[in-house]
C-alpha cells in the first residue's frame, strides 16, 4: 500500500512521456491524495511540544 503513490507517479510520468497530459495530471492528483491518506495513517503520535 505504501508503494502506491510511487506507482501512480510512475504511471503519470509514463503518460506524460507518451504525450497524455490530462492522464498524467490525473495520476498526479491520485498520487497526492493517496500520499495524504497514508500520512494520516502514519502521523498518529502527539507532538512532544510543551506549548
Amino acid at each position, binding site marked *: *500500500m505504501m508503494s502506491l503513490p510511487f506507482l501512480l507517479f510512475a504511471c503519470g510520468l509514463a503518460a506524460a512521456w507518451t504525450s497524455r497530459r490530462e492522464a498524467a495530471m490525473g495520476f498526479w492528483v491520485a498520487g497526492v491524495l493517496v500520499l495524504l491518506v497514508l500520512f494520516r495513517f502514519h502521523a498518529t503520535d502527539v507532538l512532544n511540544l510543551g506549548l
Partner: protein
Amino acid sequence: MTADLSRLLNALGLVAVDTVLVLAFVDQLWFRDLPCPICILQRAGFIAAGFGIALNLIFGPRPSHYGLAILGAMVGGIMSADQVLHYVVPGTGSYGNAIFGLHLYTWALIGFALIVVGSAVMLLFDRQYEPTGPLPLRLTVLPLTAVALLALIAVANVMSTLAICGFGLCPETPGGYLIFNENLRLAVGKIS
C-alpha cells in the same frame, strides 16, 4: 526569461531533485539506514514536486505545472515539518544518520522550501510561456535524461517500499526488509 533558459533551469532543478532521491537510496543501501514510513512519504513528496518540473520539460513551461511542483513540495514539506517537530525538543532523540549536522528530514524540509521558492520565482517570467520552434539538441538531452531518471527512481521506490513494508502499512521503526523476513518465515513454515 526565454523559453530556452526556462527549460535549462527546469532541467537543472529536476536534476537536483533526482540527486536528492538518489542520495536517499545511497543512504539506505550503502549506509544501511532504512527509511521510516514518513521518510518514505517524503521521498514521494519529492517525486510529486519533481513531477511538475518534468511536465514543464515535456510539454513546455506552464503555470499549472509550476502549481503542481509547489503543491507537491508543500505536501512533502508538511511531512518533513511534522518529523522535525517530533524531534525538535532537546532530549527527544532523532531518526537516522545526520549529514553535515542536520538529519535527512531537516534537509528535506529545506529542499521542499527551495522548490516552493524556486517555482514561485520562475512563475514571474511571462516570456517563457510564448510558443517556440524546435529545441536545440543540448536542450533536449539533459531534460529528457532528468525525466527518465525521475521515472526510474519512482519505479525503484515501488520495489524498495514493497521490500521494506510488504503490501500493507510500514512498521513505525523498520527492522529490516520485511519482504525477506516474510519469505523466510514462509520457507521455515513449509520445512517444519
